């Protein structure tokens, strides 16, 4: 047995990225042009001036003129993915890690429709990406031409905005506006669909460096001073307050201010899945994740609280459970950038509309210390012994549990790796057992729950930070959805490490079948290729781990290997994610971990040692 080092009590950097600015451009000061260019040249010239250095794409008929012009721009690196969905996810991974706009390129028709899953994912998780698609020639629009799809129509409900460009002289403005819209305010995806003739024809190109002005688009909001004052009073008056850290904390780089707020007020912090890295897990006031797979005592504390200060989150149903019984005793302060999220699902007593970091800057100087020891010790008593989240002392009974694998990965990487997870059981185990102490080190698909997200997103993350350690954690199901991107890593000579939590099932669906569908495992048993041989076939290196005692060695060897590696972790097949709020149930009506009877302990060492209630 090994003892795990504790990552230093991290006080996260106050700022992980630049605040979203009018344009992501960092002024590469290219030679200023004032000459006739083709639409294709205008496209690339504009991207360069928007600060783009890498994009993920796949060529095809309608976008070919653009690709043909690409060799003139060596400062633009194009990564050829193996499926356009991978391009969109890679753009997301790039955007999330870099804080800049990610770019995906595809052709018309099937190329464009293949992007849509990634676009929807970016919409639900507020990720700034710009998708550039080729379109059939403008004269053919609406004629059901070969590879014609009305992609601006298809993506209308899953984008912040869309552009259909039919003239070369409109390309620069459309791209500029797309970048501005994507990254400003609540970020999101923008589609720019450009007809083939617009790419082929020529127009005068003169870079317009002035900021984008859109009369109807006002992404910035500021709360009224009176409302800020009221928030301070509500925080002071609260006896049982709790802070929620959502994705907005991470995106706006508000971790430092949140730590300061907590230091001053002694209020505990629960996090959403996407907000997990917004507040260090090792902080004594960190409660960890709330909601469907949050710890039962955290959810119980939420139900008992008298004030919720929700920061940059949107009360997703995975967070609230049954809305009719959700946190009824709590007044709610909702700090949120998007006015349309306020009072959407949960009645809010005080909305503060604006950027989380900016609002905390205004709020933190005015809050004062209040003695919360009674409330904090009550939460501790709720915790009791019931949550055995710290599994480092668990005996090795010869079986391999996903929780062990993930906990060991945390221990061996000291929590410093960028972790990119897919969707399913492993994603929840990662959230529970990898302790997130550093902001923005977890990249996962939250709102859409897109299986197949992890591998291509890690590709994008790799281009955003060439030197950091990256681990993909994926299930055997999700990994098989986008595994073709392995070869993209090979072609690009890029390394990540891939941990496949392989239980031979679509595990989360199997778990629901076990709990809610009478144990009828329909269409969830799943075979996989030999992942070690698969790695070999790609010219990569694979390992297989079937015992806990082998984890350290495999991880060590994967890290030492210069190329991308796959570790096939053959974990317990019938393990489930505990605790769990069944969909639509009350937040505190959780399915708990099996009790610590010897038989259960024999089967699963990750049991609860305390009594429920």
């Amino acid at each position, binding site marked *: 047995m090994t003892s795990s080092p504790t990552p230093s009590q991290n006080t996260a950097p106050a700022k992980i990225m630049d605040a979203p600015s009018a344009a992501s451009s960092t002024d590469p000061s290219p030679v200023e042009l004032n000459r006739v260019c083709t639409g294709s040249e205008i496209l690339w010239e504009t991207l360069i001036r928007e600060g783009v250095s890498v994009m993920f794409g796949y060529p095809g008929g309608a976008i070919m003129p653009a690709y043909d012009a690409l060799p003139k721009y060596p400062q633009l690196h194009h990564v050829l993915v193996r499926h356009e969905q991978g391009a969109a996810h890679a753009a997301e991974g790039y955007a999330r890690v870099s804080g800049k706009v990610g770019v995906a390129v595809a052709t018309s028709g099937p190329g464009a429709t293949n992007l849509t899953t990634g676009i929807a994912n970016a919409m639900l998780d507020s990720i700034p990406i710009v998708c550039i698609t080729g379109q059939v020639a403008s004269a053919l629009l609406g004629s059901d031409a070969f590879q014609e799809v009305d992609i601006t129509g298809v993506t209308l409900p899953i984008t912040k905005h869309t552009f259909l460009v039919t003239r070369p002289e409109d390309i620069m403005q459309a791209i500029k506006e797309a970048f501005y819209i994507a990254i400003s305010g609540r970020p999101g995806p923008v589609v720019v669909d450009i007809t083939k003739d617009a790419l082929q024809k020529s127009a005068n190109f003169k870079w317009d460096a002035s900021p984008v002005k859109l009369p109807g688009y006002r992404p910035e909001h500021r709360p009224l001073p009176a409302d800020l004052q009221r928030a301070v009073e509500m925080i002071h008056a609260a006896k049982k307050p709790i802070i929620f850290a959502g994705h907005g904390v991470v995106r706006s780089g508000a971790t430092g201010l949140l730590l300061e707020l907590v230091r001053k007020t002694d209020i505990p912090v629960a996090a959403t899945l996407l907000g997990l890295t917004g507040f260090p897990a090792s902080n004594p006031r960190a409660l960890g994740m709330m909601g469907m797979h949050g710890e039962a005592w955290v959810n119980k504390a939420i139900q008992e609280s008298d004030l919720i200060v929700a920061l940059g989150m949107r009360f997703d149903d995975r967070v609230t459970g049954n809305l009719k019984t959700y946190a009824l005793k709590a007044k709610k302060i909702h700090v949120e950038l998007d006015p349309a999220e*306020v009072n959407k699902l949960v009645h809010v007593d005080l909305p503060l509309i604006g950027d989380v970091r900016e609002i905390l800057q205004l709020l933190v100087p005015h809050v004062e210390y209040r003695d919360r020891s009674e409330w904090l010790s009550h939460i501790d008593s709720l915790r009791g012994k019931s949550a055995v989240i710290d599994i480092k002392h668990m005996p090795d009974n010869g079986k391999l549990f996903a929780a062990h694998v993930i906990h060991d990965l945390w221990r061996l990487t000291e929590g410093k790796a960028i972790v990119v997870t897919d969707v399913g059981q492993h994603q929840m185990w990662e959230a529970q057992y990898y302790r997130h102490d550093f902001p923005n080190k977890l990249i996962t698909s939250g709102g859409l729950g897109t299986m197949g997200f992890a591998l291509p997103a890690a590709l994008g993350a790799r281009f955003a930070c060439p030197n950091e350690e990256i681990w993909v954690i994926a299930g055997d199901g999700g990994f098989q959805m986008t595994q073709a991107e392995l070869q993209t890593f090979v072609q690009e000579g890029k390394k990540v490490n891939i941990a496949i939590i392989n239980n031979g099932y679509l595990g989360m669906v199997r778990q629901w079948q076990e709990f809610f569908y009478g144990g009828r495992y329909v269409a969830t048993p799943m075979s996989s290729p030999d992942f070690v041989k698969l790695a070999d076939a790609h010219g990569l290196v694979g390992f297989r781990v079937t015992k806990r005692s082998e984890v350290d060695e495999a991880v060590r060897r994967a890290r030492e290997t210069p190329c991308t590696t796959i570790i096939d972790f053959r974990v317990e097949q019938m393990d489930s994610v505990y605790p769990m709020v069944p969909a639509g149930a009350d937040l505190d009506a959780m399915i708990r971990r099996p009790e610590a009877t010897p038989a259960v302990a024999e089967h699963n060492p990750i049991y609860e040692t305390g009594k429920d209630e």
Partner: protein
Amino acid sequence: MAALLRTLVAYVEDKPGVLNRVASLFRRRGYNIASLNVGRTHDTGVSRMTIVVEGDARVSHLMEANLYKLVNVLSVEDITETPAVVRDMALIKIAVLADRRAEVLQLIEVFHARVVDICPATLIAEITGSPDKIDAFVEVLKPYGICEMVQTGRIAMTRGVESDASRISNGQVSETVVTAA
């Protein structure tokens, strides 16, 4: 029971696809449109929509906030509680022969409607007014036999100084918008 109706006035950029964006938003969010009218205004490039939707004040606030998220929407105002002139126009073709024409013409006069077409067996009445007035007009005409009718959908304008006009003309819309109730 009729559902609660809210009336929203939205200024939008006069660009292709804007109506589609607005309609798609209402469809996607499950808001039921009772009436939607769109037309150009005296400002070049600016169209005005009058949208009547089912819902209460909370829903209306969300609709407003969601409309603001559309890049082409310049400003939105819920005028349900503001004194406003609300008008609808209808053309109604009535089956009426010469023997009862005088009766119908009298009704038309009472309602301040007007006749815009007379044929031997039909006439067309044009009426402008509040939706209630048009409903009442239709009721009294029904016994004569309505062949067909068409309505424009409601258009609305608040009384007195129109705040939105000044907000738009300088291109800088104030940030008073959309905090929730």
